[in-house]
Structure formats: C-alpha cells, structure tokens
C-alpha cells in the first residue's frame, strides 16, 4: 500500500455511499476540460490527500468522484470524518460553479450548504464570490474548501 493510500482509507464500503447519478465512464473519456484536469491531476498521485474513485457521465454533465483526507480536529464542531467521499459535477457551459456533493448518506447539516430539491446528497457551498470572478483563478483544490467544514464557524 502506498503512503498516500495508507492516509486515505475509506471507512465504508462503496455500496454505502450515495450515487451522484449517471453512468461510469473512463477517466480518459472526459470532454469537459475542468473535469478532465481534476481526474488527471488526482490520478497522477500528485496530491497526497486526495484519491481518485471514478468518473461518470450525467446527462450533459461530467462527474469526478474522489476520497479526500480532511484536516479535522479531534473534537470537530460537526461530525466530519477524516476521509469524506465527494463528487464534483462539471457543466459543459462552465457558467456556474462545479457542484460539490458529499456522497455520505449521513453527512451532517452544516451551515454552508446549497439548497437542492432533495436533502441528500448534500451540496457543499465552498465559495463566496461570483463564479465569473472565481473562475479566473479556479483550481481543482476542492479539498482546501472542504476542510473548513470541520471548523467551528461552519
């Protein structure tokens, strides 16, 4: 087992996670640039705290599923786990943020969530600024946004 894999040991079986929908595709089949970049970056093993799970096609959107090691204290404000599975959903138009879903079925109701038609999977609100401004310097570093969910202010 690689060092990175030892850090990111999913605490659940794959069947215990929610599905982001759509069908699995090869990570090489991404057509949306940001989805492709994210999948390629994580699969390359460059990030010690992220592990690629799968790629999916969801209508006109593309999905990258990851396990993230979360920098969380031993007494977090909310029950955030050391490892969380998330799905990043990219739209071909790139007119709005990539939506980031927690695929854990009991992910807590924290303060910063986006409204969705269904309660689960929960949609994480990671950004404060308009997407038009954000995308000028957007990177795939979702994890750094996700870690704030363990902090007392979230």
């Amino acid at each position, binding site marked *: 087992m690689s*060092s990175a894999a030892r850090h990111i040991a999913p605490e659940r079986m794959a069947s215990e996670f929610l599905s982001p929908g759509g069908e699995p595709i090869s990570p090489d089949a991404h057509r949306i640039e940001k989805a492709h970049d994210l999948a390629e970056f994580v699969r390359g093993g460059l990030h010690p705290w992220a592990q690629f799970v799968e790629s999916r096609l969801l209508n006109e959107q593309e999905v990258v599923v990851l396990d993230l090691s979360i920098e969380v204290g031993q007494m977090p404000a909310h029950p955030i786990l050391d490892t969380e599975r998330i799905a990043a959903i990219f739209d071909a138009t790139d007119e709005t943020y990539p939506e980031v879903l927690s695929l854990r079925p009991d992910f807590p109701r924290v303060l910063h969530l986006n409204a969705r038609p269904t309660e689960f999977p929960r949609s994480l609100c990671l950004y404060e600024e308009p997407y038009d401004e954000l995308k000028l310097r957007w990177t795939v570093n979702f994890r750094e946004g996700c870690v704030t969910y363990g902090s007392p202010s979230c």
Partner: protein
Amino acid sequence: MPKLTFFNLGNADCTRIDLANDDQLLFDYAAMRDANDPSDKRCDLAAELRRDLRARGRQWYRVVGFTHLDRDHICGSSEFFYLEHAQKYQEGPRIKINELWVPAAAITEEGCEEEDRIIRAEARYRLKKGKGIRVFSRPEALKDWLEAEGISFDERKHLITDAGQLVPAFTTLIDGVEFFVHSPFAARQNECELVDRNGNCLVLHATFVVGQQRTKVFLGADAKYESLVEIVNITRFHQREDRLEWDVMKIPHHSSYLSIGPEKGKDKTKPVPETAYLYEDMGLDRAIMISTSCPIPSNDESNQPPHRQAAKYYQDCSATRSGKYRVTMEHPRESRPEPLVVEIDGTKARIVEAFTGGITSVVSRPAHRAGANG
C-alpha cells in the same frame, strides 16, 4: 495556537513545541541528514530550525531537552547549540539554550566518548553553576556526583524534578501547557550498575489547554515496554490515570516492538497488559500516533526498528478509535517527506495536511480574455 513539529529524520528524533505565548521547547536534536547524498530524504534539521528562528527574530529556545544521550537524539547538537562549558562551542551563529533538560543519567553516566560526552559536560557545567538546567530524578549516583564536586545536594535540589511531579515554571494558565514527568525513576537507576539509557530516558506527558479544551500529548522518547509497565503501574497506583490519557502519542523508539512487548510476533506484536492499557485504553477519540521513524518495511530483513509487526499493532490501535498512525518518513509521502505538524486548538489536535504544490501549475490555466481569439 500551540503546535508540535515532528521532523523527518529517519530513525531519530527532534520535536519542537511552539506554545501559544510564542515560547518554544525543543526535545532532542538529531541532524542525521547526509549532505553529500542527494537521495537522502531526511530534512536538513539545522536549516529548518534556523529558518523558523529567523522568522521569529530570535536565536534561542526556552527549553532544549535531551531525552537521553544516544546518537539518534543528539547528533550534531554540539555544532548547532551555544554551549556554555567551552569556548570552542560558542563560535559562529549558535542557538542558545535558556534551560537544558536532561535525565540524571546524562550527568552521572561514565564512559561517554563522542558527542554524548559534550552534552554531558554541558549538563555538568550548568548543574555545577546552579543555573540554566533541570535534571530529572535524583538517584544516589547524582547525589554522589554532587558530593564529589563539593556541592551540597540541598543547594541543587530546586533544579531537580522527580517522576510523578509537574515541571516547575510551566503552567496552563500562563504557558498554556503543563508537563508531568513519568520517567526516569530514581529507584530503577539505583538498581542498575550500568546506565540503561532507554530505560532511564525522559518520558513526559504534556497537557495543553486552549479555551476549555485539554489536549494530552504523551512523549514516549525511547522507552521500552519494561519502563512503560512501570510507568503504567506507578501512575495507576497513584490514581493519576488522566496522566496516561493521550490525544497525541509520540510512539516510543521508532515503532520498535520492544516498546510493546518482549516478542516481535509473526504479523503483529502482542502487548503486555500494561502496554495494552496504555496504547489501547488510554488513547482518546481520533487519537494520533506518530512514529518518528523510517518507512515501515514490508519484510523482516532488518532487525532495526521500525518493525512491521509493531506498526500493525499501532495501526490497529488507531483504527479502533478512528485515529491516525503516521510515520514521519512517509508524511505526506514516502518519496518526499516533510516535517509533520500537529496544531492544537479548540477542537483538540489535528495533523496539518496543507498542500499547494503542483495544483496551480498543473491545472490552472490563464483565463480567456474577452475579445481574444480562442
């Protein structure tokens, strides 16, 4: 906020504690990196420490403690620190030690011939001077040594702290931390004719207070299971179990099986009851275990720690309480280890897992400008 930094030095130790009041303590100093070997992944300890001190605008530590005088705990210290006992260790940009902490064996031990002799000389000089030192435990040999130097034990006893006591001058109110001494024991040293460094090393339990939250750190030095058995039994006898609880443990002796039990085991080391109590029952939720060691081997080719069987035991201990077992030479990855940092705040302890390298250059692309083609 308080911060612990465990440096990636192979099977060797240096732990820096940064307090909320900006004071710093350094436990052990082992600059093990071979500067002539480009493949050596151990950090340049002197450079790491100097960089931090430069940012703070100072050239001193409030405390430097040597848990014992083995090479993997003192290597290079005579080149890095300003030593008061001899002018030759005062030249150049050296780092001053406001208070030196050593186990009594570092004063009384005979036969030191290398860098251990230099640290012993510094400790002896400071104890004779009666300033800038704290000695842990008071074996008969220490009393004999003081007497031979013509110094009354009573004149120096304020510089000595025994097992079972809190280290003076550190309080949770002012410093945000207190240190409880588990080892060495005077009785153990009185029984031994030869100095057993690992058996008489400095084992401390630190309690950090941030807001209302108490975070407990067990600093295991190189204690073997026999010492840990005594620590557990004595502490329980005195009903001080809270001094055995831990949120963060610096695993003793680089994940050697001998800090768990007498037999390595085929796949997993079996603890003796007392070490099982310490490692399995006293670890708190999401507890963090840190092995200051080389990467965990997949075989038994080397008899040196870390031992894969011991690592398996610690990994299982961690898993049962949703904790983490981390190895300094594997953090964040074996191919490129970095100092492991633990921050302590109102949510107790967390390993800092910051990462910025590579992301921008790999995936961030210049935005298309309005009006530009393509």
